[in-house]
């Protein structure tokens, strides 16, 4: 409390003191018979010098930061695609850095050089078509190069992945990631959010999961039967608001049930095989070096973004929409550690789209293994197929 009072007091006294100073300054300048609006020569020259000084601060700051933290500070790219974009990024950065230095230099240097000098008039120079043409055409030409190179790369990056690419799905929800591998057949089984239960967290569609979901929605803990029972019971007195909430939830559930029944009616057992052998991994995403990947993404609740900074890959995950991206890792975690000289380093998958209070903690470790290590890991994982875990009581 006293601190606050002190602060306020200091501010008030400071303001009064400043007001008095200004007053004195204004009175004296009036005495000197100078219109306040005329900027004295001294002030003009002083500010023109500061302009040059600021330019040095600006350029110096840039050079200092580059020297201290590196040109991009994000380490080498760990994927084929990343290496391509890094090359392009460097090219573009060189171009814009040159423009940054050149134009800022001209601006501040002219500001310094052409400060008003008594008796020297300004040069009346309203336009010059040749010059204007020059600085329309030159930027246009440079941009043409940037656009062509950029689009070429973009098409490569977003094009279809290699036919032998490994399929992995990344599933996002507040606030975490789950990975699903296509399993032995490298095919991801179908999924639908309506089938999500505690045992089927990704909502895979199979005959069994359909049955289980329908049963849960009818007879489960908060199922239709239970709610109807509550609503119709003579022994329980429900407040209006609770009754209303129950009704709403009942309507909701009945709708879902209808949709599930429709799904069931058109479901064929044939597609189940691709889901049975899927492997779901929650602790980390393990990848195989030099292997092309096709990632697909789903979101459970809100938009998230799958951001792999070291592979230079990113795509949003959107409820109701499956998104995709591809990349081919080129360095194992161990190799990257030694390149970076940082034994604790790990690759990461972060969330990069605002998604709620835990946004900043929504991540999954990524580990790239060499071919042998990976194959051993995967072989072991294949014991825990979706089917095995779902049917396990």
């Amino acid at each position, binding site marked *: 409390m006293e*601190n606050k009072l002190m602060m306020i007091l200091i501010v008030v006294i400071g303001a009064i003191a400043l*007001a008095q100073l*200004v007053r004195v*300054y204004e009175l004296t300048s009036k005495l000197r018979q100078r*219109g306040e*609006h005329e*900027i004295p020569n001294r002030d003009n020259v002083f500010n023109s010098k500061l302009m040059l000084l*600021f330019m040095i*601060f*600006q350029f110096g700051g840039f050079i200092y*930061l580059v020297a201290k*933290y590196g040109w991009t500070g994000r380490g080498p790219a760990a994927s084929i695609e*990343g290496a391509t*974009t890094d090359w*392009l990024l460097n090219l*573009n*950065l060189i171009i*814009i850095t040159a*423009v940054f230095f050149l134009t*800022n230099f001209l*601006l501040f240097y002219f500001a310094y050089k*052409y400060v*008003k000098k008594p008796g*020297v008039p*300004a*040069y009346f*120079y*309203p*336009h010059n078509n040749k010059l*204007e043409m020059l*600085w*329309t055409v030159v*930027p246009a030409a440079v*941009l043409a190069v940037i656009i062509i190179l*950029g*689009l070429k790369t*973009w*098409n490569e990056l977003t094009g279809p992945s290699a036919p032998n690419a490994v399929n992995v799905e990344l599933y996002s929800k507040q606030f975490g990631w789950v990975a699903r591998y296509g399993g032995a057949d490298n095919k991801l089984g179908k999924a639908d*959010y309506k089938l*999500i239960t505690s045992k089927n967290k990704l909502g895979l569609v199979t005959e069994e999961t359909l049955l289980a979901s329908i049963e849960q929605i009818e007879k489960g803990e908060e199922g239709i039967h239970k709610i109807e029972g509550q609503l119709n019971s003579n022994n329980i007195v429900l407040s209006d608001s609770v009754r209303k909430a129950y009704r709403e939830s009942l309507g909701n559930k009945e709708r879902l049930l209808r949709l599930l029944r429709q799904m069931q009616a058109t479901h064929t057992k044939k597609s189940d095989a691709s889901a049975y052998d899927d492997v779901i991994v929650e602790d980390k995403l393990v990848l195989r070096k030099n292997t092309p990947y096709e990632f697909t993404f789903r979101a459970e*609740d*809100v*938009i998230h*973004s799958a951001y792999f900074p070291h592979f*230079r890959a*990113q*795509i*949003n995950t*959107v409820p*109701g*929409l499956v998104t995709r991206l591809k990349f081919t890792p080129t360095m194992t975690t161990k190799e990257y550690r030694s390149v970076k000289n940082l034994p604790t*380093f*790990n690759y990461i998958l*972060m*969330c*990069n789209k*605002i998604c*709620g209070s835990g946004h*900043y903690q929504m*991540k999954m470790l990524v580990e790239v293994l060499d071919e042998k290590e990976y194959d051993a890991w995967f072989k072991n994982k294949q014991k825990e197929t979706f089917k095995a875990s779902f049917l396990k009581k």
Partner: protein
Amino acid sequence: MASVTHDHHAHDEHEHHHEEGFISKYIFSQDHKMIGKQFLITAVFMGLVAMLLSILFRIQLAWPGEESEFLHFFLGDKWAPKGVLDSEMYLGLVTIHGTIMVFFLLTGGLSGTFSNILIPLQLGARDMASGFLNMLSYWFFFLSSLIMFLSLFVMNGAIFGIDIPGEWGTSGNGPAMAGWTVYPPLSALPQAVSGSGFGMTLWLISMAIFIAGSLIGSLNYIVTVLNLRTAGMTMTRMPLTIWAFFVTAILGVLSFPVLLSAALLLIMDRLAGTSFYLSDIMVKGQMLTNHGGSPLLFQHLFWFLGHPEVYIVLLPALGLSSEIIATNARKPIFGYKAMIGSILAIGFLSFIVWGHHMFITGMNPFLGSVFVFTTLLIAIPSAVKVFNYITTLWRGSIVFTPAMLFAIALVSTFITGGVTGIILADSALDIAIHDTYFVVAHFHIVMGMSAVFGMFAGVYHWFPKMYGRMMNARMGYAHFWITLVGAYGVFFPMHFVGIAGAPRRYYDYSVYGTFDTESYGMIVDLNVVITFFAIVAALGQAIFLFNFFYSIYRGPVAPTNPWKSNTLEWTTPVEHLHGNWPGPLPVVHRWPYDYSKPGAAEDFIPQNVPLAEGEEEH
């Protein structure tokens, strides 16, 4: 001839003048000059609020988890228990900060203030086309500002303990928390984040009112520019300020309604159970039945406004600085026609580039490549403008008023922030830096700083016109240098944090500790530096506030034309009067940039001075 017809209008106005009471003069004023000042004061207040919010969350970023008296003082036990900022409120602060800065300070404030003050004065009109609508546009702005401000105080579906009835107030703690872009589903689902309850409802109401006000204002500006120019004021004799306000108003009229519809559909999804933006969602264990909507639809609608919005913010600042640079370099603006051409080109292109905000949203990549092309085209007219500014300084006779300093700094930030746009517009490169601090650095420098500098330049330059007194120049210098150095210190290092991969809208960067301690060290270091500069820059604004309010009452009385400027506003008397010119309206004979014209006696020739014998119009 037009001056004659306008004449008796002037006399009418004159008679009213004496009967004006306090309320009609200062509150429900229909005089454009007073309305402009109302916009300015409201915007300055909102800008201070937004700046304070940024300091609050910057403290968290620099010293995550440390107890701070300062945070506790402003946020209390609820949002900063023991002086540590709550992680949801962090998002709330960022959201309201961004919203206020973009819409309330730099749209309402910048274009509201200066379009109002300068359009009639520089065109030689008695007032806006409709004084009443003009007044209405301010009061809509005021109301929306008030609602947005109050939304900061939402707690448990109530404000200051007053419960909000029914669906509107069902739930919610704190203001909107989905970022200033309010993407659904996050913004549509109160279960997803607590700010998406009543706080979000207030956000949407406030923005709907804001948009209505902005549309009324913009229509008025357009009509005034088209119809109320004085005799001789052809379109190609208009000052570049007016060109900028004119194109800005057109952009607003064409794009804001789209945001309004986006907001209305979002309101429907929130209150009426529709599925415009929602599909296949399970949130907090609850399965929703919404089906068939698309979150991307919202993003398309949002950015259809959102990108032109950047230029709605920027063009007025560029217009003001064109005028200020020409006046204080004592030279014609170089390439006047090219400047008009670039304003028009930028205005047009700004409508077909919105997809550059959506390269990695799952939008079709081919569509993305179209947006790469159109976006990079904008760099051309922007480059033309920059080179024209620089050439205007060349061989000038520069007078460093505080306004001139800010205007030159604007050109610098426009360059520095603009060039990084080339990286972000290149979709292949955007993949890895989208939504990182690199983006935060980019838009703060190119849009935030440029527009704020433009606004400061405008205030220093036209203060004598607004308040009839001069601001203190030396305090202006101190304010300028502290602000410029502070702003660079804040936003320049953000490029490095961002390109190293640090995502934006993160409450803290402790995850880095789990995978890359080296980058973590860099982020922590630079975050402290950035916050240090932010505090310095914020304190520097006290000088401005003091100078501003002190000068309103005690500044030396201004001469009629303090900067020896050519435009018509400096031909009006210092004392404001309704109708602007006591006699007939001035007649225009030349463009506004006859500075240092060879053969003239003085280094400036106001627009209402007839051509001398044998003189050619530039």
